[in-house]
């Protein structure tokens, strides 16, 4: 069954058609990649799904619910987590605290119970801490837990961002270029990690420029060019698709 369905989605910035009539579906518990040259509209598409930008027209249905007109925090509440192409750490917070924010939708404490440290808040805080710490360990950056997140290396910040997204316990994870700026060993590591995340039952939609990674881990691929979908299919089909080859060689 499709977890996410895009139907004829459009996004215009003034005269620019950043996303033009894009439709595809993402199957549950699969890894789907969105590829395409720079400026193809991949990040814009993610922003439409996550609610950071309103779409001009079309429909995006997640788990049977229309996402259009919902705010990002509401969409996060439905179980969609994301990472950003240009990493967005919370300034002034430690790596651990960054991940703890990821537990937001999975916890309840409000102003009053937080100020008065009610017993259930105590328990919840312990729970948030344990889960966040567990995720940092899972991503092998537990030793940096108490360092300010923005002081970490690029690769470590990517890992913190991923841990933060996973902390939300998402059904769907949107990863915008998770291997950008990483060397080949780190990239291979990220590939293994994404597969592991899928095996946990999380559906992954990713944008990535590293073709060997994409071909390696994706179950299906969508190709965008100038905002339009030009191909969709299994990795082998995409590799041999003449139009895709033309777009990439023409670059």
């Amino acid at each position, binding site marked *: 069954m499709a977890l996410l369905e895009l139907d004829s989605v459009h996004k215009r910035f003034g005269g620019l058609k950043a996303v033009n009539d894009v439709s595809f579906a993402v199957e549950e518990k699969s890894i789907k990649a969105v590829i395409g040259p720079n400026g193809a509209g991949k990040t814009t598409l993610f922003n439409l799904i*996550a609610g*950071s930008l309103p779409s001009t027209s079309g429909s995006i249905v997640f788990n049977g619910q229309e996402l259009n007109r919902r*705010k*990002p*925090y509401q969409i*996060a*509440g439905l179980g969609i*987590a*994301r990472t*950003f192409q240009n990493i*967005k*750490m*919370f*300034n*002034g*917070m430690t790596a651990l*605290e*960054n991940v*703890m*924010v*990821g*537990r*937001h*939708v999975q*916890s*309840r*404490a*409000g*102003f009053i119970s*937080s*100020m*008065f*440290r009610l017993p259930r*808040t105590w328990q*919840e*805080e312990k729970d*948030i801490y344990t889960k966040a710490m567990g995720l940092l360990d899972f991503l092998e950056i537990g030793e940096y837990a108490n360092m300010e997140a923005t002081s970490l290396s690029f690769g470590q910040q990517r890992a913190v961002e991923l841990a*933060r997204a996973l902390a*939300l316990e998402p059904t769907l994870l949107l990863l915008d270029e998770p291997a950008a700026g990483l060397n080949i060993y780190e990239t291979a590591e990220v590939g293994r990690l994404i597969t592991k995340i899928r095996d946990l039952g999380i559906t992954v939609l990713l944008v990535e420029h590293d073709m060997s990674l994409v071909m390696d881990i994706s179950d299906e691929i969508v190709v965008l060019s100038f905002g339009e979908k030009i191909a969709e299919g299994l990795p082998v089909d995409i590799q041999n698709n003449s139009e895709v080859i033309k777009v990439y060689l023409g670059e």
Partner: protein
Amino acid sequence: MKKYLAFIPFFLFVVTVHLLTSWTDTLYYLTQMTMSAYYCLLIIGLCVVMGYAGQISLGHAGFFAIGGYISAALTTSNLIEYRDLPLVRLLDSMGMLMTGQDIYGDTLIVITPWMACLAAVILAILLAYLIGIPALKLKGHYLAMATLGFGIIIYRIVLATPYFGEADGIAEVPAFVLFGDISVSGDFSSRVSNYYIAWILLTLGMVLLINLIDSRVGRALRAIHGAEDAADSMGVDTTAYKLNVFVLSAVFAALAGVFMTHYNGSIGPSEAGVMKSVRYVAIVAVGGMAHLWGALIMGITLNFLSLRGVFGTYDDAVFGVILIFIMLFAPNGLLRINFRHVATQLLFFRRAGKKEA
């Protein structure tokens, strides 16, 4: 537990000040220390809004005045003529009225300080929502502008309304009996106990806010400050959080006004002035924005000096200068000043000056 450690030197300081003034026969200093503590109650609330939620309020003197004026007006307006009205009877039967005597020995029937305090806090909450809901829906510094307008309106209202005493304000505000013999009042005999009451209330405020900062809510607020769109994507309803923390700070400000007014026995329009709001903002900035203890230390120091009259006729100007200085040279506050930053800034000014010459 580590986050509460700072309370140890804090308590030592409070007790030391008392003992020192007691030995040197200078207990009158405690009066200004008490008032400084009440101002700090407002300042730490504002610190959370500015430092942790990244919003600026230029109307906190307005909320302080709402606290002060509502409790002063309600606890001094004699209801004796209206005692047969059903509403007054209802209040009386619910224990919300008390009797007393004015300076001429006439009988007064007034609303109790507890009820007046409750009314003041509720009004502050309503007004904070009223300002905050439209202003915080928009991104940017709309809250600063909206609160500035609000502050001016409150100042004009108290200055022009006979019920609030116009330019004279309201005097003869009765003591606020908290429980038993413990009451907030300006009696000379209770100067020491009032000093401790004020500092205990401030401690309570600090504990609540320190807990808040280090909690799910606090992390959400800091996340908004750190990267608003990412916080949004993590499920944080950024507008609601900014709004609620603003309302919370308005409650702190109103309570500060309530206690200060019962302590002084009076309140005047200068407490509602816009320069007071600017002063609070300057103190939070000089304390390091996202730094509750910094705000507290600066709040005590600067308010104490100001109340002692150290700044003379330049009182308001001093706080304006502080604000400019902090923004230019020490954006992280005076306690975390970066001397290299100051040096480069000064150098830059010299160069810029030379170029012009």
